[in-house]
């Protein structure tokens, strides 16, 4: 049996169709099974070379992509911006074209500027996978989040997911909204008004400023980090004030009328958006998200590298 994605690059969830998402999930389930074998490596991409270009810091995504590529037996080169010629003034297009001249088939890129992946996909002849572009999209994170919810709750249709925290600076939030809606889930965003984008309603999401109300409404709460590195002005009076209003603690969790699932894309700021007890509780699927991340990225690489 053959199957194909409707896109040539993975730039954002916005471009995907539901059938694409389902194909990625189905393939990822098989890769997840392979990751539980004693030998976790398959030769599918042994003729491919993949470059990971991270122009912005990353731990989880970079390691997860690298591991996924190695598990598929691809040849892997990785570049971190801080140690590259980018700091000497080379343009993005020149950097990438130089790397492609070394016969690279797939480029996985994280970049601080929104649209960097789209820009590249129009100008270079290789498969581009967006690993996060500014505050725009982070498609593989959204796919692994939706995959993890589906694994935990069986289906996404009709499920209610609340995304809590710094929505304004979050690429995870935008990709998650697109992905969850395509899968038939209802989405609510919750955070201080200053950290919600102005026209967020137009995406068809519910908006709530009260954490308790959002948690009572949802089946799953996805807690986002406050992205201080992207904030050049103060969006709330103090971190302490934010924690008091939007920090998820065990007390709040236990006061809810039902058991909800807790997610976090990482990195966690323990004691800020989520308390340690909640992050480590049995309602949290944070580490399952990380585990599923490798399988999802293997599926995306496999389906796009043909």
């Amino acid at each position, binding site marked *: *049996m*053959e*199957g*194909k994605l409707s896109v040539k690059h993975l730039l954002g969830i916005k471009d995907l169709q539901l059938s694409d998402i389902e194909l990625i999930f189905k*393939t990822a389930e098989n*890769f997840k099974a*392979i990751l539980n074998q*004693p030998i976790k490596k398959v030769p599918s991409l042994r003729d491919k070379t993949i470059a990971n270009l991270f122009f912005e810091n990353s731990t989880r995504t970079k390691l997860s992509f690298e591991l996924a590529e190695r598990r598929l037996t691809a040849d892997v080169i990785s570049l971190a911006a801080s140690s590259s010629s980018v700091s000497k003034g080379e343009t993005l297009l020149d950097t990438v074209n130089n790397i492609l001249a070394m016969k690279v088939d797939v480029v996985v890129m994280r970049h601080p500027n929104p649209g960097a992946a789209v820009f590249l996909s129009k100008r270079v002849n290789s498969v581009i996978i967006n690993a996060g572009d500014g505050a725009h999209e982070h498609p593989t994170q959204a796919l692994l989040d939706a995959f993890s919810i589906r694994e935990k709750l069986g289906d996404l249709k009709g499920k209610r997911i609340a995304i809590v925290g710094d929505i304004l600076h979050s690429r995870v939030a935008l990709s998650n909204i697109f992905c969850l809606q395509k899968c038939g889930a209802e989405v609510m965003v919750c955070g201080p008004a200053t950290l919600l984008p102005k026209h967020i309603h137009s995406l068809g999401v519910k908006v709530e400023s009260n954490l308790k109300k959002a948690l009572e409404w949802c089946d799953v709460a996805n807690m986002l980090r406050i992205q201080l590195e992207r904030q050049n002005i103060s969006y709330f009076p103090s971190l302490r004030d934010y924690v008091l209003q939007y920090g998820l603690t065990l007390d709040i969790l236990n006061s809810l009328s039902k058991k909800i699932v807790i997610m976090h894309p990482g990195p966690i700021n323990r004691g800020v958006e989520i308390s340690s007890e909640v992050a480590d509780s049995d309602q949290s699927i944070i580490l399952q998200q990380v585990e599923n991340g490798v399988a999802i990225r293997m599926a995306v690489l496999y389906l796009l590298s*043909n």
Partner: protein
Amino acid sequence: MLERIILSPQNFKLTLNRLCYQLIENYNNFENTVMIGLQPRGTFLAQRIHEQLISEMGKTNLLLGSLDVTFYRDDFRKHDAPLIPQATDIDFTIEDKKVILVDDVLFTGRTIRSGLDAMLSFGRPQKVELMVLIDRRFSRDLPIEPNYVGKTVDTIASEKVKVMWKQSDGEDLVKLITT
């Protein structure tokens, strides 16, 4: 298009019986033995043989699994679109086990080669044997030969062997299709 029946429902049943007895001759009680059907259609033969050995012949030791070889294939880049895998279901270890690998039709041997690779990812078996329902001899690309064969046929590459199963197609039948 010309269709010829090469295994009628009646002969199909006799062939399955014979394969079961051949296995019993070599494995007796099937201690420490597992049977693995290759996805998608090798699993049908594995299920049937397994079922018959258990229900009619009381050989309850034999474990059954199914294995998908998609990611281990060597013709991955030869198709227009990526091949989509089926489920692998092996909930036992094959370390030091005797393995009977099962497929419906043996043609070039490339699927079996992928199957051996995929299987070895689960551990190091003591020994592996191959059972197929139909052996299209003289068409091998690789030096792979079956240990148990339902029926051997002489075919040319443009011909197609179609195996139908009661479980999925309503009846047990093997046809040779010439175009």
